């Protein structure tokens, strides 16, 4: 006899007994059933739309990958925009601006001084440091501002030297600031 049958006695007690616990047979709340049915329908719709039809809807992995590609593209565009404004002249101009050289000095002291020395002479208390001095006239990879910038960005081509490509750590404008600081201290 269905629970909705009008001739049904008011309450049905089911036969089974577990640990003394018995069970009535009552209608579930309509709101509960409604949300269950909606959830089933929604599941079918989502499954069909996302995985069966070529609607172009993305899975979550695809959405993340698309976001990452956007971020990479934006980073690349920013890098190219910064580099487009930089040439030897503009870098030399930056090296006279205390705003840029000040920021560059802070970055240099935290990241570069360990190898190149606080005085850019690659010496600490008489001990020779791993880097090369930046205040002498020996420039292994070029002394033009753009060449220095290229070296800092991409690291030393000689992988045994230990100068890492800093583009993964510093933005293009930060590298430009460090280079402007180096130029301001350069004597040769």
């Amino acid at each position: 006899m269905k629970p909705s049958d009008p001739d049904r006695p008011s309450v049905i007690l089911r036969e089974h007994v577990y640990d003394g616990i018995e069970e009535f047979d009552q209608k579930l709340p309509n709101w509960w059933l409604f949300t269950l049915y909606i959830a089933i329908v929604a599941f079918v719709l989502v499954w069909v739309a996302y995985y069966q039809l070529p609607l172009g809807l993305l899975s979550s992995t695809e959405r993340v990958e698309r976001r990452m590609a956007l971020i990479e593209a934006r980073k690349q565009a920013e890098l190219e925009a910064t580099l487009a404004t930089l040439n030897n002249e503009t870098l030399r101009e930056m090296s006279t601006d205390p705003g840029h050289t000040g920021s560059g000095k802070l970055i240099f002291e935290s990241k570069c001084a360990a190898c190149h020395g606080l005085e850019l002479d690659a010496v600490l208390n008489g001990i020779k440091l791993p880097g090369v001095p930046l205040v002498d006239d020996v420039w292994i990879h070029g002394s033009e501002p753009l060449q220095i910038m290229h070296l800092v960005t991409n690291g030393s081509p000689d992988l045994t030297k230990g100068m890492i490509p800093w583009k993964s750590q510093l933005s293009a404008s930060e590298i430009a600031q460090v280079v402007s600081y180096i130029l301001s201290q350069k004597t040769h």
Partner: protein
Amino acid sequence: MLTSKQPNLESLTSINADGSRYFLHPADVRGRFTLFRRLFGVLLLAIYVLLPWIPIGGHPAVFLDLASRRFHFFGLTFLAQDLWIGFFLLTGLGFSLFYVTALFGRLWCGWACPYTVFLEHLYRRIERIVDGDSTARRRLADASWTSAKVVRRIVKHGLYILVSLLIAHVFLSYFVSLTRLYEFMKQSPRHHVGVFGVMLFLTGCLYFSFAWFREQFCIILCPYGRIQSALTDDDTVIIGYDRNRGEPRGKKSDPDAGDCIACSRCVHVCPTGIDIRNGLQLECIGCAGCIDACDEVMDKVGRPRGLIRYDSLNGLEQKRRRIWRPRVALYTGLLALGATVMGLFLSGLHSATMEIVRMPGQPYYFAENLIRNQYRVHLVTKRHEETSFTFEVAGLPEGAIVTGLDDLVLTAEKESVQTFIVQVPAAHFKGTFSIELTSTVGPSGEKLVDRIDFLGPSPYLLSNP
């Protein structure tokens, strides 16, 4: 007078036999528990609304800054690396709730649960003011749609939506801070679609819950109600009817009757639609409305209060009441253990973090008879003021050179990545060893420690090229 449905032990009062909802209209109740509950509820609401306004340590008292992943609690700042504290918070709060439940039953539900606080002290107050007492509300619900009814409904639901919006905005301010919330409110929603969507969703949930869903959550959805039978025993203090005193029910003038005069006031005021005289039930949220209702009637008929009262099941049967019992002893022991472990771990929390990572590139470099390892040390300060760091390295062999670890000062809540280099003369290199970097944080003097290996070529090959 319109009659309400009589509760029974076989079905939910609030769900009809065909599955549709029977909307409950609890009657007004006055008494000491109602008063204390209301005061406590107002206090909790005040705390909820005011916490984002109170600045401590430069930030709102509770500010869960998701955007920058910094979580501020009363002057302390936690970063994403401190997420493990969440484990202790959640399990600690959960276990404390179990402990309180073992002693006092569903005290949380009727007195402190945000659902009850919002529903009882905000939405039901609005309903009472707009629609009147329970008789008037039932009459209005059954009436046809006159213009008076339409106006009342619009006013009431308009107020519901307004209150829901307010609650949702306060909730948001815990995550974006009041200043940013105000900025968002001045902008068009286009500029912060996600946040606006969250606010709308919250408002919708609150409105739905408190305008219609009401006690269905407590009875059917909330897991706390369902685990009561596992957490309570016959010595837990619950709300109950003193059967020995009250039965058999009868008229006041009947000398053979018990104290219960079958006025059913306790049924009329119940917000979940039960009859507490049937015993402790799943639906009872411990609101103490039935206690106040019965006490008021007992006063009028000149009988002592407490026919319905806070007592344990044993106490209601006049048996010996125990507070200290094996369950409570075990819970106390576990709570002490948990608190000790949490204390131990929390003492390892510092106001800054330091982490050493090897720099990308070769694992070691060999030049000028020196073996070199290149590291990066990542320093973050959680403090709102300047923090200074001084460094010491231990575990180095003779002749080792360390560069890059100069003293550092970080401004408020900043982070920095420092290069540091360790070089060891080939003659003194005897194989991989571990170096330990200790940083002293000022001004508190805390010590941060991290270790990393120093790698190099095989010492045998070095000495026998």
